[in-house]
């Protein structure tokens, strides 16, 4: 089913630059497994949130001033004087949280259904790169309003690089553009906060390209075998994703219009003050699990390495997981481990928001330990010793109800 345009204009362009054909293939005919569940909606929702953040962010930056003396007031100017400025800003700040919710669900879906396994290793890697870029972007964005949490969050996180032996202090000075978090820091964070989303767009294009090369994974984890197993992306998945988008937008709107500050921190409505440290410096909720891992080690360098290691090990997942069965549906032991791992991540999130005192320190250490034990030890072992359940013959055989032949018989 190749693309043959009828419109002469489109034909003319297509002969010189086959962009319409490419889009047609990507968004229309892309053969998609017919059994994708709603867990597969989060990919397109993540793409949608990226666009929301880009549009609201570009307009916000028209009214924002990146200067330590003016940034806080310019945000209040947006909230009070700019037409629908409150809407734009709350969309952008809550949008960041919604983006992370969607991406975390997308990642855990990949973990459950083994979407990282061959031949989708590069797809998985590109996804992790997007995740890293998102974290950098979100962190720098949180600094821009120049409230107390902005300033102290920036101080804590940039100081982490000071743990690097020999060159640590030099790197921190270089990051700050001075000897403390100050105006040059705010300026470069604003510049990079504007730049990185466009880098994310680039990696998203690669991510989708890789996806369309290997094809989507599906709840059975077995590949498309014949035409029976797949359906064109449009209209089936466009409409399914639109329904998912509708539900998601209702949730987004509930936060946006009725609890816009619920996921924020009151201290960030206090202007930054380098002389007053907040009682508890906490990052945004989506960084809490990593913050918990960072604080699990009494040694600064160790903590930093463990925190970055927590993401680095995810890159090795396609080789650590020895099982050739993708979907947890057919992996009775892995299925249980998956839920324990999810629980572990939830515990880490909780611990990340607590002060560094007992019993939270101990719980945090156990949860951190388990995070690495799951990925580095349990995953390879389970793959070797687990007895998988029998796989269905094909995707079609799995979706079509067993009584479908009876039904046809009774219809006849």
């Amino acid at each position, binding site marked *: 089913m190749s693309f043959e345009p009828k419109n002469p204009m489109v034909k003319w362009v297509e002969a010189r630059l086959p962009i319409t054909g490419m889009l047609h293939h990507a968004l229309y005919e892309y053969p998609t497994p017919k059994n994708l569940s709603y867990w597969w909606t989060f990919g397109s929702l993540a793409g949608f949130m990226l666009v929301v953040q880009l549009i609201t962010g570009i307009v916000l930056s028209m009214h924002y001033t990146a200067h330590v003396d003016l940034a806080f007031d310019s945000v209040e100017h947006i909230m009070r004087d700019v037409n629908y400025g*409150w809407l734009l800003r709350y969309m952008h700040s809550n949008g960041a949280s919604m983006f992370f919710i969607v991406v975390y669900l997308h990642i855990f879906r990949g973990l459950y259904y083994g979407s990282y396994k061959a031949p989708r290793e590069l797809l998985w890697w590109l996804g992790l790169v997007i995740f890293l870029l998102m974290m950098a972007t979100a962190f720098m964005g949180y600094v821009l309003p120049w409230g107390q949490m902005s300033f102290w969050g920036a101080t804590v996180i940039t100081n982490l690089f000071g743990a690097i032996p020999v060159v640590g202090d030099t790197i921190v000075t270089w990051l700050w553009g001075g000897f403390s978090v100050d105006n040059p820091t705010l300026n470069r964070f604003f510049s990079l906060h504007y730049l990185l989303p466009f880098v994310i767009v680039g990696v998203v294009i690669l991510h989708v390209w890789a996806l369309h090369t290997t094809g989507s994974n599906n709840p059975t984890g077995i590949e498309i075998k014949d035409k029976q197993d797949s359906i064109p992306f449009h209209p*089936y998945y466009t409409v399914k994703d639109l329904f998912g988008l509708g*539900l998601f*937008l*209702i949730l987004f709107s509930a936060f946006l219009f009725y609890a816009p500050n619920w996921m924020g921190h009151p201290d960030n*409505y206090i202007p930054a003050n380098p002389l007053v440290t907040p009682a508890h410096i906490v990052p945004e909720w989506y960084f809490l699990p990593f913050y918990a891992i960072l604080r699990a080690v009494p040694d600064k360098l160790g903590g930093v390495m463990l925190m970055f290691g927590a993401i680095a090990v995810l890159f090795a997942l396609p080789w650590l997981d020895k099982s050739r069965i993708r979907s947890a549906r057919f992996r009775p032991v892995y299925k249980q481990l998956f839920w324990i791992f999810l*629980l572990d991540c*939830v515990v880490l999130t*909780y611990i990340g928001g607590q002060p560094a005192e007992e019993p939270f320190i101990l719980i945090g250490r156990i949860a951190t330990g388990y995070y690495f034990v799951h990925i580095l030890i349990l995953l390879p072992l389970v793959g070797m010793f687990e007895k998988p359940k029998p796989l269905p013959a094909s995707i079609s055989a799995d979706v079509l109800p067993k009584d479908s032949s009876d039904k046809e018989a009774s219809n006849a």
Partner: protein
Amino acid sequence: MLKLIRKLSVAALLTVVSISGVQASGGGIELKSATWKHEGLFGTYDRAAAQRGLQVYQEVCAGCHALKHVAFRTLADLGFSEAEIKALAKEASYVDGPDDDGEMFDRDGKPSDKFPSPFANEKAARASNGGAYPPDLSLIVKARGGFENYLYSLMIGYEDAPEGFDLPDGMSYNAYFGGHKIAMPSPLSEDGVEYADGTPATVDQMARDVTVFLAWAAEPKLEARKNMGMKVILFLLLMTGLFYAVKRKIWADLH
């Protein structure tokens, strides 16, 4: 086993979500809570209370606390007429300029002006307040865990220090302030202001009124936001319902 783990995960997730929402609230001291008319899905600011609250702010708080993000013109939100706003603004005086001769000059306030600040700068404010800096009140309700209830509690929380409590000179004891030692002396006293609408000016009444006024100052677009939210969500429900119907129809030929 699997079901149990799954249930535990969900329970833990819900706990984290509910706790993280509360993590913000004040340092473990149970606050006095009141009901606020602007809470809830359809809540709007109590205009009469906010107008009285403005009077409390101007007569009691404004001596030390600025409100620098709030412009007089926005008082129209609270039901003040244009003439009233002009009159209110006119009471304030601003240094403007330079004029054509290069001189700065004093002028009366205009509706487009922000509330005047009582001190020229932070140093001046600290010098007149025993070293303490009275914070700007524009965002105070959103900037403290506990929000409206915190401010209300703080206003009515002045009492005698308990036996043996080490209270330095010039500090006051407040049941709801972190550490209980607060540099601000009790600001409200019975009949401290004389309300134009005849409402008895008890400490509790003034505390409530000024809290409503400052809640509005911190979140002036609350009513527009909830109003739009209702329309957006109704539209989304309809749209999502339609998408569901279309999805069912399109997928029907596959089943």
